[in-house]
């Protein structure tokens, strides 16, 4: 087993030609990894992805090989995956207007080149989910939304159509499910790659709170900022300490750790309908 890369929250290993994606219990806010882990966070997010991979398998093939054939020390925090040739586009679906998409809409009436009706406000539900791809990162430090045509120019028209259609299809299926659980998926991102058979395949994680913005449906009130379901708790607490958002981050007190863990657990249980056992 070879350690390929260590991120702020997850690690990547290669094992007999497969990839092992291993999530930690670390939590990061404002680009800083905080020193206090959230117990079970890595396992909760990993197992939520596993559940989604299974429940979305009719919509899209995925890279999951096994959630159990992993080194025992990783427990439920790891999955064994196919190695994919990754498409160099981050595929984002938005069902609601928020964040930088809101700013773009207010300035241009569009988001990533998609025209939206007038009169939408912060938190508004969009008439249809939209595909708003981005580059993986920006080396200018500026926002880098791209349009469907940009994607088509980059990866080809056929691939771009597939990426767009799969992204919105996964979002729709996922959002239908979370709606039953009282959770809104404001937006979410997917990573796709080609498998060894030439099939466009869903990779990375799917519909977790690290790859999505979840809002509690019973608190949804268009016209102002919405509160994220889980990570917002740590985020709000960190700001309340007067921390300047630069390293090192503050240690998280026990009460906040427990409350945050409960939020992650609640998201898992509400979406999957399963009971989480540590």
């Amino acid at each position, binding site marked *: 087993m070879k350690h*390929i890369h*260590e*991120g*702020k*929250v*997850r*690690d*990547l290993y290669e094992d007999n030609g497969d*990839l092992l*994606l291993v999530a930690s219990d*670390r939590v*990061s806010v*404002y*680009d800083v*990894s905080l020193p206090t882990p959230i117990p079970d966070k890595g396992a909760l997010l990993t197992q939520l992805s596993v559940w989604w991979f299974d429940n979305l398998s009719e*919509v899209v*093939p995925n890279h999951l090989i096994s959630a159990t054939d992993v080194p025992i020390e990783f427990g439920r925090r790891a999955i064994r995956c196919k*190695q*994919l*040739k*990754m*498409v*160099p586009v*981050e595929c*984002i679906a938005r069902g609601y207007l928020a*964040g*930088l998409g809101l*700013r773009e809409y207010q300035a241009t009436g569009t988001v990533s080149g998609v025209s939206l009706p007038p009169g939408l406000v912060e938190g508004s539900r969009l008439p249809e989910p939209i595909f708003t791809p*981005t*580059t*993986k*990162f*920006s*080396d*200018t430090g*500026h926002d*880098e*939304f791209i349009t469907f045509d940009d994607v088509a*120019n*980059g*990866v*080809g028209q*056929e*691939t771009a159509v*597939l990426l767009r259609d799969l992204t919105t299809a996964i979002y729709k299926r996922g959002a239908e499910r979370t709606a039953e659980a009282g959770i809104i998926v404001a*937006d979410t*991102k997917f*990573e796709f*790659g080609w498998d060894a*058979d*030439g*099939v*466009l395949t869903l*990779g990375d*994680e799917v519909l977790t*709170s*690290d*790859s999505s*913005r979840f809002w509690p449906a019973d608190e949804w009130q268009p016209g102002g900022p919405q509160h994220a379901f889980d*990570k917002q708790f740590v985020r709000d607490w960190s700001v309340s300490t007067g921390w300047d958002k630069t390293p090192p981050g503050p240690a998280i007190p026990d009460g906040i750790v427990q409350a945050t863990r409960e939020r992650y657990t609640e998201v898992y249980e509400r979406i999957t309908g399963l009971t989480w056992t540590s």
Partner: protein
Amino acid sequence: MSDQRQNHDPYSSGQGYDPYKLVDDVIEVLVQHGLSPDRSHGSTSERITGASMLLRNLGVAPLRAPEDAVDLDGGLHYDSRMHGD
């Protein structure tokens, strides 16, 4: 739907290259030629789209390695890009 996705892989020839790395390579070549390329001109997306188009038109697929594509930082970049956190 799965069948439709079969054989759409334009990269089955086996040649692939990371367009982000191509941009770095081009910058290095330009510097070697005495030029001073500056990333503050234009945008990342234009550079990556341009690099991807160049690769495709040379019969090379624009692709990324999993460690470069998968977000291992807990959604930090996503939160930043999407919500300005």
